[in-house]
């Protein structure tokens, strides 16, 4: 069955092209960063790191080369908002990157595009070429003396982990896409060892909007700690799947109402690495201080088998872990084995407790965000749907 794709009107559609850049280039660098900080914008890629602070660190780093990287690897199951942005509002993203370059003192931007979005490449290249021709990229951007900035598109090769910013940088450098040790952070030692800001597609687009509409406009929306608007990629058992714009701080219940997901038994917020919110907690807010998200919302209707959901996620992580660190490489596999045992009614309570403890170890000891969050779904499903997953009829060997 094909779901009707619905969307509400996005702010991006109302922002005139190149207005943000015009406004930015009239300011000095410090002012731009102060404005971004003041807006309270936090990274839209999932981790929710304050964009202003990130840019400030990169601006303060001493180096003759710096880089702006736009993370368009969009690999989190259930997210496709970046694809929509790149299809309809790519100029806002390119503007945001240029503003970032101006603010931190970079001359080069790189858009790291997910391999599956290769079909978008020529369209984006055309846009970039047009921007170059019209002086919005290249030397002395918009006539601003001494500000040179250009953007290059580089393709990913299909690994989810390359969305992790340091793995992305490794991949850009031509290495195996594996996360690095941190510290140091990319703002200090990034692409080719130079200070680099890595931001999500949506983050850059919002920066442009903030420069057009002002920091206060953004700040007034959302909650105190999670300001502004956010795009959500909604899918699953609901009437309207699609990309929606909602203010941060919306409750899960409100969101479900808007997308026609009434009666859901649980909602996966933040994709496979996110959290599974059960119906009893639908009054929780989607915000960095409560249930954080990079934008993926997957609705599970009353008939969904939650163990199958956990299994599906676990299989995804076993496929996608880079395999360098022990907790994630081996841990995911043990958790999946546990799920299979549960499926067959052969997992003792004691072993389940052990697996949950293992999940906590993975969260605490894994090297990167993938392993740190891969047990989330398993743990929340065990915590909230114990009755459903336990007590399955044992399957004979």
């Amino acid at each position, binding site marked *: 069955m094909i779901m009707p794709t619905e969307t509400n009107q996005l702010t991006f559609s109302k922002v005139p092209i190149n207005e943000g850049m015009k406004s930015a280039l009239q300011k000095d660098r410090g002012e731009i960063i102060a404005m971004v900080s003041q807006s309270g914008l936090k990274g839209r890629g999932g981790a929710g790191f304050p964009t202003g602070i990130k840019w400030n660190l990169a601006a303060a780093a001493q180096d003759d080369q710096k880089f702006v990287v736009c993370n368009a690897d969009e690999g989190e199951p259930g997210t496709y908002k970046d694809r929509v942005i790149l299809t309809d509002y790519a100029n806002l993203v390119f503007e945001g990157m240029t503003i970032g370059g101006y603010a931190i003192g970079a001359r080069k931007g790189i858009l790291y595009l997910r391999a599956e979005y290769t079909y978008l490449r020529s369209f984006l290249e055309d846009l970039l070429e047009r921007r170059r021709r019209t002086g919005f990229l290249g030397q002395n951007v918009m006539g601003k003396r001494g500000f040179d900035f250009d953007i290059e598109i580089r393709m990913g090769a299909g690994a989810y982990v390359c969305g992790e910013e340091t793995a992305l940088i490794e991949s850009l450098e031509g290495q195996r896409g594996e996360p690095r*040790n941190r510290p140091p952070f990319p703002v200090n030692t990034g692409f080719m060892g130079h200070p680099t800001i890595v931001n999500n597609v949506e983050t850059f687009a919002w920066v442009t909007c903030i420069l057009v509409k002002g920091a206060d406009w953004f700040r007034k929306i959302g909650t105190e700690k999670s300001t502004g608007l956010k795009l959500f990629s909604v899918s699953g058992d609901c009437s309207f799947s699609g990309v929606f714009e909602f203010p941060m701080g919306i409750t899960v219940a409100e969101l479900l109402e808007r997308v026609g997901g009434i009666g859901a038994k649980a909602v996966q917020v933040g994709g496979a690495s996110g959290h599974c919110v059960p119906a009893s907690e639908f009054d929780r807010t989607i915000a960095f201080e409560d249930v954080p998200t990079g934008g993926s919302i997957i609705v599970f209707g009353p008939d969904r088998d939650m163990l199958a959901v956990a299994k599906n996620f676990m299989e995804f992580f076993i496929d996608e872990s880079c395999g360098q660190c022990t907790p994630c490489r081996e841990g995911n596999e043990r958790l999946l084995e546990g799920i299979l045992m549960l499926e067959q009614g052969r997992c003792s309570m004691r072993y389940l407790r052990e697996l949950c403890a293992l999940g906590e170890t993975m969260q605490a000891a894994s090297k990167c965000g993938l392993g740190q969050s891969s047990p989330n779904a398993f743990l929340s499903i065990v915590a909230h749907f114990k009755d459903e997953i336990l007590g399955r009829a044992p399957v004979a060997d």
Partner: protein
Amino acid sequence: MAEFYDKESVRAPMSQRLQRFEPPSDTQAIGALVSVTIDGKELKVPLGTTILEASKKVGVRIPTLCYHEDLCVAGVCRICVVEVEGQPRLQASCAYPITAPIKVKTHTRQVRQARRHILDLLLSKHYGECYACFRNNNCELQALAKEYGVDFFRFGHPEKPRYRIDRSSPSVIRDMDKCILCRRCVRTCIDLQEVGVLEVNQRSNRSKVITFGEKPLGDVICINCGQCINRCPTGALRANDPTDDVWAAIDDPTKHVVIQTAPSPRAGIGECFGLEPGVPLTFEMNTALRRCGFDKVFDTNFSADLTIIEEGTELLQRLHKALVQKDKMVRFPQFTSCSPGWVKFCEHFYPEFLDHLSSAKSPQQMFGAVIKTYYAKLNDLDPKNIVTVALMPCSAKKFECNRPEMCDSGYKDIDYGLTTRELAQMISEAGIYLPAMPKSDFDDPFGTATGSGVIFGATGGVMEAALRTVIELVCGIQVEDLFAHADITPVRGFDGIRFMELPIKKVGPVPELLKGLFEDWDWLVGATLKVAVAHGTANAKRVMEDIKAGGPCSECHFIEFMACPGGCLGGGGQPIPTSPEIRAARARAIYAEDAAYEVRKSHENPAIVRLYTEFLTEGPCSHLSHHLLHTAYTPRGKYIV
């Protein structure tokens, strides 16, 4: 940090490279200290020190698996995690540079649980039985299992192997069922040695360490240096062990089994018997070897001296051709050829430079050829009944002795190459506690060795020995006139690449040994002999690239290359573990032994003098010596089919 680490040149990805905090360039921050509290103990460390390094200073032990002092930091095993106050997650102490005051706890409940889990996870994939494993009692995984009280396999244990053991290489055997994916071998091969045979392939639970195209190790560009073996924490990598064959030869009454012992194993073998590094057991080992049943015990130093004479003469011949005959075809610099790992490296990566390699065989092979000819004749033995065993610190020597061209005596020059570790095993098997053995000397006719042979074991040793001989033979002076105690210190030490220049101001008469080749040395007056020393193939590569680019190395006349970091004393057959300190201790033992010898110059070795009077009567680099003691090389290239 390893003395070999050179930030500019390493090829390891940043994800596996030591990411050291670089303090801001303002002078205040340079050398600045930062305070850190570890388990309640406070100390001040330089900015950028890792938690692991800091904890060592206060005597707090943090377990490690993927960390190795010689290698860049990977931070992948996560066994070293600790709690840093204020951080929501545990941090890998090996990979966490301290840049602000922090408080660290190294054994909280969460930390202990994480370490147990990590060990249990590793064991859930680790197929192998400790009692049937060469690393039994010397295995980092096994030791940690004990330390953390692993008493059952919480997450199971494999019952079947997943991989086939790769026995294709004459030097290194890979048993990937014991691999814990710490990637130390990968970093060793790519980053420390810059050979690049091993890489991680695939991801997640499918990831494994592979060779190019998953070809057998024997078919790829592995140089057999065995450095990966020395740095593997488990029994996944080991040398190809011929002890069964050696025992069989000893047990066979028709066989005359002789063993030659290289300098480095003496300085290391004590470690296999629980001694501190750097306690030489040269003469104890002689006794033990006889008790094991070897018929004769010879000192490789003899053939090391022989190599010096042959290689040194070759150098003088090259110089003569270039300076006097103006021969444009003569190649400089001449490269040493005694390190089989380096030779294979050159064959693979720089095949166009093979005519720079000295044609002289390595001491191991020269000795084999001499034993199966001269020695056989002297003792009226049929060479086919002589079994030559070589005790070497090296895994590449196993490959070398199996090179098809190494049969100039009509038989295999050397039948078996044993590593230090394997000999220690044989000695234990014979019920001998080596350090308690009485001392005894080497056997004649090669008995007396010189110090110059001993220092072959350390990087710079071949060069020092060659210089001692060249100075005396050419300049007609005592080395001691130029260098106190004949210690040519500029070529010693552990710097990756070292240079030395020796201006030849005056010359002496041509000594008896070389009369057939040279009339006088006058053509050398005013020349400056330029030499260099490089150890570890990463540095060798640097030298080679410099030669290609016409840099200072290209102006050298003679360059010593050793494939292994530290030279042979850090060889791939030496006791495990290895570290800069351990290698330094072994080097001290070697130089101390050199200083204790009376005759310290190769050309003064009476056994050498005798060999040239009785057997190689036409002198060095003559027809016979070329036949027996010299060899040729194979351009292999990098591309494998």
